[in-house]
């Protein structure tokens, strides 16, 4: 991976995460399932990095590990030059403003009993990003204008909004805190193509305008291509390939990456596609 560069915001080395198993008296763990093996990943300031893999690849776990939302069993995470690997939660909390997350399903990630206004304003007041309620309201409305959301949505609860609007609220919640780093976990999966395009375009503009670094998790290589600068390809809890998007997609070095690329049907007639390089069918 090379020495960390000065403009790296997030640097993680040797990340290992395991679930389950029992702890023996000696402190060792037995029977645990390892979800991440020795993963190295870095995200530069202002850079959008894709993390792609199929189900079970460990990409979601990696994302949450980077944000220290789950415990890691080995490795180190450095955020803006500071080692946050073993940081107690009380010291992590003030730091969290700078590392935010956007979730896949806004229905479950927005508190159903809250109005949109409260969902967006409270974090701003909590972290003192806004001076007071009026300032917070102003910021929220400004953001809504920017993403073409009607201000009337502020008084609604999440299930009273459309899918695309809910997704924009999720993005707003993260962006309004003016973080340095955002983790986007499968945020456009399940959206209509047109709504997805809107969300991706918004994300691209936003990360550019705010200078955000982003880790974008997806199972969809095409989506990754649309907005990411670099990509990490994961399989079975390991990184099997990493590099700039144009390089990886044009000339993948890993056979697995090639397999993933080949699995995507393009909207063009390609008679040989179905027979090309398919994984062994027998299950």
């Amino acid at each position, binding site marked *: 991976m090379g020495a960390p560069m000065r403009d790296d915001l997030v640097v993680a080395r040797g990340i290992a995460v395991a679930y389950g198993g029992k702890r023996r008296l000696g402190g060792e763990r037995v029977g645990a399932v390892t979800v991440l093996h020795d993963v190295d990943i870095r995200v530069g300031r202002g850079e959008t990095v894709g993390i792609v893999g*199929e*189900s079970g690849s460990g990409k979601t776990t990696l994302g949450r590990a980077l944000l220290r939302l789950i415990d890691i069993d080995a490795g180190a995470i450095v955020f803006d030059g500071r080692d946050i690997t073993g940081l107690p939660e009380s010291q992590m909390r003030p730091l969290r403003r700078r590392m935010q997350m956007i979730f896949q399903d806004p229905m479950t990630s927005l508190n159903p009993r809250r109005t949109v206004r409260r969902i967006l304003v409270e974090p701003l007041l909590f972290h003192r990003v806004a001076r007071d309620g009026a300032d917070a309201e102003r910021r929220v409305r400004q953001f809504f204008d920017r993403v073409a959301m009607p201000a009337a949505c502020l008084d609604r609860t999440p299930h009273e909004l459309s899918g695309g609007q809910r997704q924009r609220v999720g993005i707003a919640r993260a962006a309004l805190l003016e973080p340095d780093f955002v983790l986007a976990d499968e945020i456009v999966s399940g959206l*209509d*193509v*047109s*709504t*997805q*395009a*809107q969300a*991706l*375009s918004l994300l*691209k503009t936003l990360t550019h305008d705010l200078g955000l670094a982003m880790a974008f998790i997806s*199972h*969809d*290589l*095409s*989506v*990754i*291509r*649309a*907005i990411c600068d670099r990509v990490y390809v994961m399989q079975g809890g390991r990184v099997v390939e990493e590099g700039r*998007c*144009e390089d990886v*997609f044009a000339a993948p070095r890993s056979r697995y990456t090639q*397999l*993933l*690329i*080949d*699995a*995507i*049907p*393009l*909207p*063009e*007639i*390609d008679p040989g*596609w*179905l*027979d090309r390089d*398919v*994984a062994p*069918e*027998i*299950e």
Partner: protein
Amino acid sequence: MNDPILSVRNLSIASGLEDRAPILRRVSLDLAPGEALGLVGESGAGKSTLAKALLGVLPRTVHITEGEILFDGHDLGRLARREARAIFGDAIALIPQDPTTALNPGRRIEAQLTDGLRLRRGIGSSEARARALSLLGEVRISDPERALRAYPHQLSGGMRQRILIAAAFALEPKIIVADEPTTALDATVQKQILRLIRRMREAHRTAIIFVTHDFGVVAQICDRIALLFAGAVIECGPTAEVLAAPKHPYTRALIAAAPRYDRPNAGLAPVPESVVAQLRIEVAADHGRPDAG
């Protein structure tokens, strides 16, 4: 088209609730024997409703207000119960979207796979079992005996989808309706399943209606495409033509809105509001619909 196997003529379906909202507007489509027709559209376009009408599982809250669905001399919208039971699930079968929920978690695979054979063809259980084993072989499941004994949760998503495909083809239907059968699967698994569907289709000479939102999938599997919006058919024609030279601006915009791994700037342009607005006006006025078939 000579003698389509299925002919939808001016089918209109509306909600039975107070608003009488139209769900399908004068949809006309023809399906040739052995042909693969892709039903494409965004969510809410009406593709599921059309699929359900073909399978006889329209919810009670909606009604057919106009038109007919002609199959084998019957109008599928107005069938008597006995005829309905003979056709739906038999001559017309379903490959469902979600392999997790489509199988009964409390019954072994053998039971679920042989149900149709035993109940509808009156085949005895040992012969049904033999047929089931052969079907599992066709869908390339490596240990069919083990699969038959298993419960759904013991199998992977891809395996379950293969079993559902086997079940769909079990009664040698004339038409299969595949309702987004690969949406819930990983891309690599999707490719295998698509390949399997193509092979089964060719072997059994079954026509297939493939519901999907993915133009890429349609391009690889379907002979013709019908694009729906707000319950109306916007464009319909051979796949190669529609993809290479779409006639309607909505079709063009929708194809362009999808991201592509070979183009760094694709997938960032939603369908323009103006195109959608224009389309809504067209649909409401019910003109400008190209002929299907």
